[in-house]
Each structure stands twice: as C-alpha cells, then as structure tokens.
C-alpha cells in the first residue's frame, strides 16, 4: 500500500550532452550546426534569441575557421574572451546556455565542451527618475539591467570597500540579485540578515525587487513598507555611505534599502540638495500632511456625529449651513466621497497618461461640483477630502502613499463608532503596531523609540551637514564617524 505513494525511481535518463542538445532542439530558437569545411570540423550550439549574434559572427566564428585545432584548449587560447570555460558538468552547461553562452564542440559526441559567453545585453537607456523626480540634483534613474545599475552605483562610490554579493533566486526566473554594502562601515549583522533571508527564499519567480521586499520583510502582514525602494542611484550611494544595505535585482529598476526607520519615509533625497532650513520645513510639512491626511476625515465624522459641542459657534454656523440639505449621516457622506476619490485615483493610474489627465479633470470638477449641487455631500467635506487626498501624495516614498490611503478607513469606521475616542483607539493600535515593527531586525520607530536624541539630527529635521558628522545610530554601523567634526567646525576669529 505504502509503496503506491512512493515516487517511482526516475527512469535512467541519457544524462549526456547529446540528450541535452536533443532536448533543446525541441525549441524553435535553438541553433545547432556543423561546420565541415573549416580546417577542423566543429559543432556550434546556442539559443539564437539569447546571444548577441554579432559577437558570434565577429569574434567567434572567424577564429574557429582560420586554423586547425586539435583540442578545446587550443580553441580557448585562440578566442579573444576572458571567460571561456571548458567543462563536462551538465548542470553548468545547461545553466550557461540558458544565460546566453555559445557551446562549441569538436565532435558532436564529445562529453566535454567549450562555453563562451555571448549574451545579448539589451537595456533601456538611463533616463530621468519619474517617481522620485527632483528639480535639483542628478537626474539619472535605475534601469532594468543589473549591470547598468551596478555601474551607476559604482561610479558614485569608486572605492574597493564597496562589496557586491550575488545570489540567484527563483526556481523559474533564476533572477540575479546583488547585495551591496560598504565593508568597514556597514554592520555585518545587517548584511548577514539580508543574505540569510535571501538564501532562504523559496519562490519561483522574482520579477521585480518589490517581490523580494515583500518576501523578506520582517512582518509580511504589515501595511508599512519595511524596506524603501528607490530608483535614484544617488540615494543608493548616499545610504550606502551611511551604512545601509542595498539590494538590486536583475530586471528591476528599483533598488531596495534597509534597514530603515519610519522617519526615512518622509525624506526625499532632494532634501540633501537644498539648504537645511528648506529641507527641515519641507519634512515638517510632509509629516503634517500625512497626519492630516489620515486624521482629518475621521475627525470630521467624529465631530459631526458626536461632538458638535467641540466646535465654536461661528464655525458651527458654516458647517451647519453646508450640511443643512444633506440627507446622509456624516459617515456615509465621507465614505462616498472617499470612494469617489479612490476611484478617480485608480482609474487615473490604470489609464494611459493623456486619458488619465482628462479623467482627473472630469472627476475632480464635474463629479465634485455635481455631488455638492445634488445635495449628496457638503462642500466642506469635499474640500477636506480633496485636501486629504492631495496630502497623501506628499510622501516621497510611493508605497507610503498607498499605506496612508488604506489606513484612513479603519480610522473612519472607528470614528463613526466611538467618535474621538474611536480615533484614539485606532491611534493606539497604530502606535503599538509601529512599536512592534522592525526593519531587518532594527526598531522601526527609531529615533522616537528607542529614544536616541542624536538621531534627531536627520529625522523630522535636517540639520546642516556640519552637524552630521556621525552616521545614524539605528544602522549600528561599524564606523560611526563620517568626518572629523573638529576640523569641520573650526571657527576662525575675525579677520584671520
């Protein structure tokens, strides 16, 4: 009985090169041909769609046709390539052919063969960042090729301490993933955490770095991003120098940064390119915008449902007159409008950009005015919701915008249930959740908790660079000192 469930032993496959080539031949784009006329006859096999045919014709075939070789070693010596491999390891041969190598045999029945890398490297041109556009600062963004991306980073950090560890992840996609860090600065514990989690990954397809971000997150059920993804190479270089770990994936135009603290979700990298007063003001505005965006509609609902005594008389008049003809309770009114905004946003995101703009205008002006005219919503709430939607776009990290979008709804429902108290309860749960979160094992809410006064220099506020002589504490870097503060802050006397 038991033996029925046991796997049948695999049939003795013809585990040799001939069988492999025969298997590949079943694909239409596999090329396998023989050159009998050349001084020494040889066989060439490759996937025509994976290799750069120009390399084959310009750099490989002419050399093979010129002279007579007696062995593969002779071929290896003659070919002008640095990574020519002679092997009989079937697994290696299989992987390499699928990654764009050309297989050369002197005889079709040989078990040993020669592999030459001739992969086709097609990548988009490096363009302007679109998600994290900034007026000042460099305007290069990552592309889908990991080689180009690594080049963009290395160019900015031409030091030997910048280390790259490579992984291949995904049983189907075989995605090349690189972990970047600076030796001597980055805490090795962080690097090990990342490497450990990457090598433990069990997933078949890694199509983008965002999938990795979800798979290796400390808490996979949290709404909050625990790794920041960025398309700016300058940001990557910046955080590497601070002591973070960066993950790049083939086929992804976004790098992942970790560990992060929640405060970094409010930092645009542009903050470092403008003066510190402006940067600080902008950060405070963003933090205000986020709290405003989450809280303002729930407060409206709570106050108008339960606590109208809270509002001073004069303001009350405005509110009452705007709500006089509305047949719906505040919560329904708010949910209808919130849903409208979400619909507009989602439609705008799904449509081609030109049509999307039109939808935005149609939705914003026509639906909004019509809803107020029809007496479905009050114009005060319309203003509030539009502002809240606008405010949620101020976060520099795109993912955080989505988080805010969703966070609002539990707050709204609790506000309808228990008024301001409901908001307080929702807030309590939010805080506990944030306290619990970690990013690569480092506390998420730092520098607020655990409180580290020193890290406030670059959190809510950005102090001038002369104050930033130490790296952020939450990264637990090996080398804390960025530059000597003593020299930087030397004060010269008058007229000296």
């Amino acid at each position, binding site marked *: 009985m038991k033996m029925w469930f046991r796997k049948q032993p695999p049939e003795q496959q013809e585990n040799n090169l001939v069988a492999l080539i025969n298997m590949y031949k079943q694909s239409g784009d596999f090329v396998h041909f023989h050159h009998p006329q050349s001084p020494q006859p040889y066989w060439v096999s490759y996937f025509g769609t994976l290799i750069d045919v120009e390399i084959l014709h310009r750099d490989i075939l002419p050399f093979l046709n010129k002279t007579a070789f007696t062995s593969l070693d002779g071929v290896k010596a003659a070919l002008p390539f640095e990574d020519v491999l002679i092997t009989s390891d079937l697994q290696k041969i299989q992987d390499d052919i699928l990654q764009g190598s050309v297989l050369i045999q002197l005889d079709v029945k040989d078990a040993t063969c020669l592999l030459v890398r001739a992969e086709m490297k097609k990548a988009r041109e490096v363009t302007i960042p679109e998600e994290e556009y900034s007026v000042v600062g460099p305007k290069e963004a990552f592309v889908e090729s990991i080689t180009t991306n690594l080049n963009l980073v290395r160019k900015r950090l031409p030091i030997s301490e910048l280390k790259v560890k490579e992984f291949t992840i995904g049983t189907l996609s075989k995605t090349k993933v690189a972990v970047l860090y600076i030796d001597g600065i980055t805490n090795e514990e962080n690097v090990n955490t990342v490497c450990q989690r990457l090598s433990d990954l069990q997933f078949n397809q890694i199509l983008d770095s965002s999938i990795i971000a979800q798979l290796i997150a400390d808490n996979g059920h949290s709404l909050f991003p625990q790794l920041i993804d960025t398309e700016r190479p300058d940001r990557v270089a910046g955080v590497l120098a601070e002591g973070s770990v960066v993950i790049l994936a083939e086929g992804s135009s976004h790098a992942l940064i970790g560990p992060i603290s929640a405060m970094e979700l409010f930092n645009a990298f542009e903050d470092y390119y403008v003066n510190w007063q402006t940067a600080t003001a902008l950060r405070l505005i963003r933090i205000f915008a986020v709290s405003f965006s989450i809280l303002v509609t729930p407060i409206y609902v709570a106050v108008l449902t*339960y*606590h109208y*005594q*809270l*509002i*001073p008389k004069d*303001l009350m008049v405005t509110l009452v007159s705007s709500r006089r003809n509305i047949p719906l309770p505040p919560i329904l009114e708010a949910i209808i409008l919130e849903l409208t905004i979400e619909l507009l946003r989602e439609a705008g995101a799904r449509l081609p950009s030109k049509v999307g703009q039109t939808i935005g205008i149609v939705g914003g002006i026509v639906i909004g005015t019509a809803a107020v005219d029809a007496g479905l919503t009050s114009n005060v709430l319309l203003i509030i919701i539009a502002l809240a939607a606008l405010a949620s776009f101020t976060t520099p990290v795109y993912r955080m915008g989505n988080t805010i979008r969703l966070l609002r709804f539990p707050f709204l429902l609790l506000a309808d249930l*228990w*008024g*301001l*108290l409901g*908001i*307080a*309860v929702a*807030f*309590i*749960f939010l*805080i*506990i959740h944030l*306290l*619990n979160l970690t990013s690569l094992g480092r506390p998420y*809410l730092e520098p*607020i*908790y*655990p*409180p580290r006064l020193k890290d406030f220099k670059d959190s809510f506020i950005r102090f001038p660079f002369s104050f930033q002589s130490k790296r952020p504490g939450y990264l637990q870097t090996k080398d804390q000192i960025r530059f000597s503060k003593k020299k930087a802050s030397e004060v010269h006397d008058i007229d000296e």
Partner: protein
Amino acid sequence: MKSVIKDQFLVSPFLVLFLIHGMQYGVGVLSFQRDIAKVAGHDAWISILITGILVHIIIWMMYSMLNKTKGDLITIHQQTFGKWIGNLLSLLFILYVLAESTTVLRSYIEIVQVWMFPLLKTWPFALVLLLSVYYVVSSGFRIVTGVCFLAVVLPSYLIFTYVVPIEFSTFRNLLPVFDHSILEMAQSIKGSILSFSGFEYLLFYYPFIKQPESSQKWAHFGNLVTTLLYLLIMIVTLAFFDQAYLQKVIWPTLMMWKIIELPFVERFEIIGVTSWAVVMLPIICLMFWSASRGIKEIFKLKQRSVLVFLLLLSFIVCCLLIDRETIQQYNTFVAEIGFYLLLGYIPFLFICCHIRFKMREKG
C-alpha cells in the same frame, strides 16, 4: 534559580524615568485634588510635597532591596520568607495588582461614560482596550516600555492646559499657609499617596533594566517630575476653585479644562478625556505585564496563557461593576489596600529583607 534575561529584552536605564512617571500619572490625576483637599483644605499642596518625599524614600528602599537580591519581588519574597510563605505573599501582591488594573480600566470607562458617551456600554470598550493591552504585553517588555514612553511624550501638550486656568484664579485662596494640624496633614497623605502609586511596579521590572543599579537616579527623577506636575495641578486647582465648591466636584481637572477656549475648539475636556486613553494605556499594560510575569515566575507557566486568563478575569470584573456606587466602593476598597501596601508593607519588607541578609551574613 534566577532566570537570566537576554540582553535584547532589556531597556536603557533612563527609560525608568518614563516607567515611573508614566505609571504614576494616570486616571487619578483627573480626580485626586478633592480627596486631599477634603482633609487638608487649601494646604493640600503641602501634602503633595510631603508625599513626594515619602515616595522618594520608598523608591530608595525598593532599590536597596533589589540591588541586594538582583531579582524581582518574587525572589525578594522567597529569599526573605522562604519559598512557601514568600510565594503566597507574592501571589497576594499580584492579586492587588490585578484589582488595581481593573480599577484603572473601569474608572476610565466611567469617566468616558460620564463626560462623553452616557450610553456607551462597558463591555465593548473594555474588550477593545484589553485587546490592545494583549497586543502590547504579548510583544514583550520593550514594547510595554515603548508604550509607556510614548504615552508620556505624546500627551505632554496637556501641561499647557493646566496653566490656562491661572488666568481665572485667585491665589489668595492658598492663604493662610500651614493652617492645618499635623494630624490633618498626615491624614491627607493617605489620599495623596494613591495618586503617586505606580512606582511599586519597579519591583517587577527591575531585572529588565540594563545596569539596574544606575537607573536609581532616573527613578527618583521620574518621581520628581510627578511631584512637580501634581504640585502645579494642585496649586492651580486650589486657586481656581472655591474650597466649598471643590468638595462637590468629582473630577476637578476635567472641570478646569472646561474653561479652555481655542479659536477652533470649545469644550476642551472632550479632547482631554480622549487623550487620557493614551495616558492610561501603559498603566494597564504594565500592570498586566507585572501580574502575568509574576505568576509565570511563581508557577512556571507560559506567560501568554496566563495573560489571556488575567485579561478575561479583569474583563468579567469590569463588566460586573455597573453603577457609580459599586465602582466607588470597589475603588475605595482597592485604595485602602494600596495605602497599607505602599506605606506599610514595603517598609516592612525592607526591614525584614535587611534583617534576613544580616542574619545570613552572620550565620
């Protein structure tokens, strides 16, 4: 015998400031003025000062015991009274902690029912609050401390609201100073020590502090902050209310908030009560953490299941306390025990503990 707590679960010594102050500063702040002023009249602020000093002494006593035994209340009890009597005493202490946590929870819900939602049912709100407590306590002591810290920092804006009523106060109310007999002052301490209670949980979380000996100054500092804050509130209350009227007000702090008016907010007490949800959360959390930790130590049970059981127990008791009368009786009863525990039992334990250590050194 002693379980060593891993380094990653420990908290910095200076956080003891927030643990002490956050635990003291709770629901009592909204109502403590009346009980003290009942006996001490307009000299109630002196009573606060004296109690503050007394609490400093008790904190010193606790540190002197804890530093000796390097453990918590349970190890102190075991080393002083032996295993069986020691554990029994610890259990009684934990029972008091549980009773107190229910008092805090029920008193807060009562305030909400009186000031915000007269029709609010006790059980759903208690359930949600206890759920949040479970979330915090099950995440461990570091998170409990975090909640404590944030609950001190976030609502700190409320300190401005204690200053506003000064505009409408007459400080002549405070005169003449020292108008009460020493006996009356001593009696008033009974009322004020309860608003200071909360520091005794140090006996439970002491082993979770990094270099616990160095945290003593922060504990004293925390108590100092509480004393000063109470002093401020007390003086403003005495100056703001007429003595006869103060006797009729159950929650003087909330009454004072009524006077605050901002361009966009009237009836500030509603915001005050709402903020208090954040203020009292860590108190309940740390109480349940201490109780479940203590039971875990005594009976070697899983803390998580103990916690669930305790929360259920508290939930049931909370729902059974229906009207103002019962709550008041229950509160008075717990307060009575608390008074003897803080001013009687802890000094007694201090003496016993030291005698025991002296005997052991000789023998």
